[in-house]
C-alpha cells in the first residue's frame, strides 16, 4: 500500500533538488543595469547614523559623505571649501567670518544657510558648557580647543565666529553642519535618542537612504553644489570580526574596495589582477606602556616608576625586527607620541634609543638594578623583577610582539610573563576609579596596545596628561611640566610657537618613556581598477583613497569601463564655483528612496520564513501521525 506521506516527502525532496539545480545558472550575482555602485568593505559595523553618537571610523566615513564640514579636508588635508566657500580672519585674529555658498540647498530641497551653522555650533557650545558633553563627546574638542566664545549669523550668507585667543583650528574642525529644520528639537539632553534615520538630509555629495545591520547605502545628492564621482550609489558593507571573509568577497569581485585586511591576505592581493594593494602611513601607533602610578595600585615593582629603568629597557627592543616579523614590514619604527604622519608636528627626539643589549644591561646596572644569583635582576627593595605583560585579544599582532619582548627582556635579566586578556578586562585594569580603594586597582605592569589620532595632534598629546588618569591614560603617568606645556601649545598664537612647545613635550615624553612607542602601523587598503578609475590618495603622496579624513576622494572616481574617460561625473555637471544653482541630476540618478524607520526593508526573509514554517508543519504533522507509515524506505 502506498503511503501518502512518503509521496509527500518525496515531492518535497524533489522540489529542493530542482530548486538547487535552478540556482546554479542563476547564481551569478545580479546587477542592476543602469546604476553604478561602489561597494566598500570594512570590518567595523556602523554604530550610529547620528554624527555625535558614532565612535567608529566607518561612522565618520558615512557622515563626511552625507554632510559638509564648515571647511572640508582637501587632497592633502588642507582646508578646502565645505559648507562655507570662503573665509577671512580679522586683523586682531579674534574673529573669523565664513561666507556660506549662495543658493546651496539641503538634499531635501530646503535652503542651506548660515542659520544652520549657528544652530550646529551652538548645539556644541551649549552642550559643552560647564563640563557637559554632546552625544559621546568625540566632536567636542573641536570647538572647545578653539576657544570659541560666540557664533552668530549677521545674514543668511555669513557666519561670524569669535574666539578668545587666536587659533587656526576652526578650519580643521570635524563637526558636520546639520540641518536646523530636521534637528530643531534636538538638544544636548536628548541627542542620545536621536537616531537620524534615513533618508539622512545633508549637503554632502551622497545621502544615506538605507541602513541595515549589514550595510549602509548612499545615493547621489541631487542638490549637491560640487562635483560628484562616477558612482551613482555607494554601499559600505560590514564584516565584523571577519576580515578574511571580506578579503574572499573582494577577490570574488563582490567588493570594489576593502579597508584593513590582514597583512597576510594583503600580501596575496599584491599579485592579484586588476588590483592595487596599498600600504600607507597611518596616523597612529602601537605602544608598550608601563604602569607608572606613584600612589599605589597593583604594579609588581617600584622599578616601573623609575624613568631610568624604562629608558634602559627601551634599548632592549628591536623595533625593525618587530615590524618585519609581526607586521610583515608594514610599519615604521616608533619614537614620539606624535606620528610622522602629522608632518607639521612630528619631531624626532634627541638620543634615539636603538637595539643594543649590551647598553641595556649596563644602563640597568648603573640605574641600581643588579642581577641576583639566578640572573634575574632585583629592584631597589631587593625583590626579583618579574613583569606581567598583558595584551588585549582584539589584535593578534600584540601577542606576537609580546613574545619577542619577553625574549629580549629575558636577555637583560628581566623576567616577563605574557598573557592575552579580554579587551574589557584590560580596559578595566588600566582605568583608575578614584571612588574605589586604590589597593585592588591598576593590577598590571606592562601592556601593549595602540592609538589612532586625528589630523590635529591634541588628541594623542592629551592621553598623557595628568587629567587623563582615570579615562584615556594607559600609564597613569603624571608630569606637571608636560601638563603646563600642553596648555601653552594649545593657546599658542602661531603654528611656529605651537611647534616649539610641542617639540619640548615630545622630548619630555621620549625621555620619561611611560610608553615606548613600538611602531607606527601602516594602513592597508586594496581596490580594483577595472571598474573604477581616478583613484587618488589622501594625502596625495603616501596616503590612501578612503577612510582618511573627509570624503573628497569619493568624488574623484571615474568609470573605468568608459572608452574615453569623461570628467569625473556622469550626472551632475555643476562646477565647483560658488554661486549658481545646481541643476538636479537627470534620470540616471534615482531620487533618494525613503524607507521606513531605516531597518531591514525587505519582506523577502519573512516570506521565505513563512514557507519554511509551512514545510516544517507539514513534515511534523506527518511524522506524528502514528497510523500512517512515518518515513520512506529508499529501495
Amino acid at each position, binding site marked *: 500500500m502506498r503511503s501518502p506521506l512518503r509521496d509527500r516527502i518525496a515531492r518535497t525532496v524533489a522540489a529542493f533538488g530542482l530548486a538547487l539545480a535552478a540556482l546554479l545558472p542563476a547564481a551569478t550575482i545580479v546587477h542592476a543595469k543602469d546604476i553604478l555602485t561602489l561597494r566598500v568593505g570594512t570590518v567595523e559595523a556602523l554604530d550610529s547614523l547620528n554624527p555625535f553618537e558614532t565612535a567608529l571610523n566607518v561612522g565618520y566615513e558615512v557622515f563626511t559623505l552625507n554632510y559638509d564640514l564648515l571647511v572640508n579636508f582637501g587632497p592633502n588635508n588642507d582646508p578646502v571649501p565645505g559648507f562655507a566657500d570662503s573665509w577671512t580672519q580679522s586683523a586682531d585674529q579674534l574673529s573669523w567670518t565664513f561666507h556660506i555658498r549662495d543658493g546651496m540647498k539641503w538634499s531635501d530641497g530646503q535652503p542651506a544657510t548660515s542659520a544652520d551653522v549657528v544652530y550646529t555650533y551652538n548645539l556644541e557650545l551649549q552642550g559643552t558648557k560647564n563640563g557637559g558633553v554632546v552625544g559621546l563627546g568625540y566632536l567636542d574638542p573641536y570647538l572647545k580647543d578653539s576657544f570659541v566664545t560666540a557664533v552668530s549669523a549677521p545674514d543668511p550668507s555669513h557666519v561670524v565666529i569669535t574666539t578668545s585667543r587666536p587659533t587656526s583650528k576652526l578650519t580643521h574642525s570635524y563637526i558636520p553642519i546639520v540641518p536646523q529644520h530636521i534637528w530643531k528639537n534636538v538638544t544636548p539632553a536628548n541627542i542620545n535618542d536621536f537616531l537620524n534615520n534615513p533618508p539622512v538630509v545633508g549637503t554632502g555629495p551622497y545621502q544615506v537612504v538605507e541602513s541595515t545591520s549589514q550595510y549602509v547605502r548612499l545615493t547621489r545628492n541631487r542638490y549637491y553644489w560640487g562635483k560628484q564621482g562616477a558612482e551613482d550609489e555607494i554601499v559600505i558593507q560590514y564584516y565584523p570580526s571577519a576580515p578574511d571573509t571580506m578579503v574572499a568577497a573582494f577577490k570574488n569581485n563582490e567588493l570594489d574596495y576593502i579597508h584593513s585586511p590582514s597583512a597576510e591576505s594583503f600580501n596575496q592581493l599584491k599579485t592579484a589582477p586588476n588590483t592595487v594593494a596599498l600600504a600607507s602611513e597611518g596616523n597612529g601607533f602601537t605602544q608598550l606602556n608601563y604602569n607608572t602610578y606613584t600612589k599605589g595600585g597593583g604594579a609588581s615593582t617600584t622599578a616601573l616608576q623609575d624613568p631610568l629603568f624604562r629608558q634602559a629597557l627601551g634599548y632592549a627592543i628591536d623595533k625593525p625586527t618587530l615590524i618585519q616579523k609581526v607586521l610583515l614590514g608594514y610599519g615604521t619604527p616608533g619614537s614620539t607620541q606624535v606620528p610622522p604622519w602629522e608632518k607639521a608636528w612630528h619631531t624626532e627626539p634627541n638620543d634615539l634609543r636603538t637595539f643594543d643589549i649590551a647598553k641595556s644591561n649596563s644602563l640597568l646596572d648603573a640605574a641600581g638594578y643588579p642581577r641576583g644569583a639566578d640572573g634575574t635582576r632585583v629592584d631597589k627593595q631587593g625583590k626579583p623583577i618579574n613583569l606581567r605583560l598583558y595584551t588585549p585579544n582584539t589584535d593578534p599582532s600584540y601577542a606576537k610582539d609580546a613574545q619577542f619582548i619577553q625574549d629580549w627582556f629575558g636577555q637583560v635579566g628581566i623576567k616577563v610573563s605574557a598573557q592575552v586578556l579580554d579587551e574589557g578586562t584590560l580596559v578595566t585594569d588600566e*582605568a583608575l576609579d578614584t571612588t574605589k580603594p586604590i589597593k585592588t586597582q591598576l593590577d598590571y605592569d606592562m601592556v601593549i596596545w595602540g592609538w589612532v589620532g586625528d589630523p590635529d595632534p591634541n588628541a594623542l598629546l592629551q592621553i598623557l596628561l595628568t587629567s587623563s588618569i582615570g579615562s584615556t591614560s594607559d600609564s597613569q603617568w603624571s608630569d606637571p611640566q608636560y601638563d603646563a606645556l600642553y596648555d601653552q601649545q594649545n593657546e599658542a598664537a602661531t603654528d611656529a610657537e605651537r611647534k616649539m612647545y610641542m617639540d619640548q613635550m615630545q622630548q619630555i615624553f621620549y625621555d620619561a618613556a611611560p610608553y615606548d612607542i613600538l611602531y607606527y602601523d601602516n594602513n592597508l587598503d586594496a581596490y580594483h581598477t577595472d571598474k573604477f578609475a581616478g583613484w587618488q590618495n589622501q594625502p596625495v603622496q603616501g596616503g590612501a583613497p578612503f577612510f582618511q579624513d573627509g570624503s573628497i576622494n569619493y568624488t574623484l572616481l571615474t568609470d573605468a569601463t568608459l572608452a574615453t574617460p569623461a570628467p569625473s561625473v556622469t550626472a551632475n555637471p555643476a562646477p565647483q564655483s560658488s554661486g549658481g544653482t545646481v541643476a538636479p541630476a537627470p534620470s540616471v540618478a534615482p531620487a533618494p528612496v525613503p524607507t521606513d524607520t531605516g531597518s531591514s526593508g*525587505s519582506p523577502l526573509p519573512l516570506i521565505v520564513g513563512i514557507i519554511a514554517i509551512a514545510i516544517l508543519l507539514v513534515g511534523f504533522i506527518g511524522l506524528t501521525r502514528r497510523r500512517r507509515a512515518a518515513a520512506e524506505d529508499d529501495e
Partner: protein
Amino acid sequence: MGGRYFIRKVAGACLTIFMIVILNFVLFRMMPGSPDRILLRNPNVTADSMAAARARWGLDKPLIPDQLVDYLQATAAGDLGFSFKFHGEDVTDVLADRIWPTVILFGLGEILAIIFGLALGAYSGWRRGGPIDYIGNGISLILYSMPYFVIGILILGVFAIGLHWFPTSGMLTIGGGDGTFGGQLTDFLAHLALPVTTVAIGLIGQYSILMRSSVIETLGEDYVTTARGKGLTSARILRSHALPNALLPAVTLIAINLGYVIGGAITVEVVFNWPGLGTLTVTALEARDYPVLQGIFLLLSVSVVLANLIADLIYGRLDPRVRS
C-alpha cells in the same frame, strides 16, 4: 493527556524562565569591563563624557537592588532597553532585524538535516552491516565531529572562491538586485545555499546516528518478531511497527534542537558574514553591550525552555506510557 501533567509542565517552564531572567542580569554584569570603559580607545574621550555615558546607561546606580529592580520591571513590560553599541536603538529593534536571517538559516538547515538524517539513519539501521550502513555511519561520524567553521570554510573555498558558483558572503547583493521579486528571491537563495548546506551537513550526523541505533533497537523487540511470525513483509513491518516507535527519541531530539535554532551558530554566521543573531552576539560581546546580550540570552533561553516544554508535551501525547 492529563490536565495535571500539562499544568505541571507549564508551571515548571515558567519558573525556569523567571530564574533565567535573574541569572541573565547577574551574569552579564559580572563580566569585567563595563561598556563605558570600552569607549575609551578614542583619544577625544574625557572623564566627563565617560561619566555622562555611565549616568545615561544607569550604570552609576548600585547593582542590587536598583539596577536589578529596574531591569525586572522593564523586562516584564516588554522593554528590553536601549543598545549601548548601536547608540539609541531599541534592543527589540536590533534583535528583530536579525532574528529572521538566523531562523531561516538554521530552520532550513535543521529541516534538511532531519529529513536526510532520519532517512539515512533508518536505512542504515534496517540494512545493518550493509555497505550503506558502513559508509553512511562513517561519514556521519566524521561530519558530526567537524566544527561548523571547518565545514563552512571548506565549502566556501570550493564552491564560492574556487568554482564561483555562489557568492561568498552576506544575505543579499545590495546595490545590485534587478528589483523584481523573482530576482530578489533567486539572489537570496544563492546567498543562502552555502550556509544552509554547512548547517545541514553539520547536523545530519546527530539524526542519522540516533535514528540508526533506535531502529536497530526496535527491530530487536518482541513485537517485531511476532509481526515476522505473522508473515508480514519486511517493508510493512518497518513502516507500521518499527519506525513509529523508533522515531520517539528522534522527535524529542528534533523538538529540543529547534529550541537552539534561534541561537544560531556563531561560527557559521561569522564565516559567511550572515547577518543573524550569531554575528550580533559577537559584536555585542566585544562592545559589552549588556542590553543586547541580555536580550539575546533571554530569547535563546526562553526558546529552549519552550522547545523542551513542547517536547515533553508531544512525547506525552505520543507515548501513553509517559502520561500519568
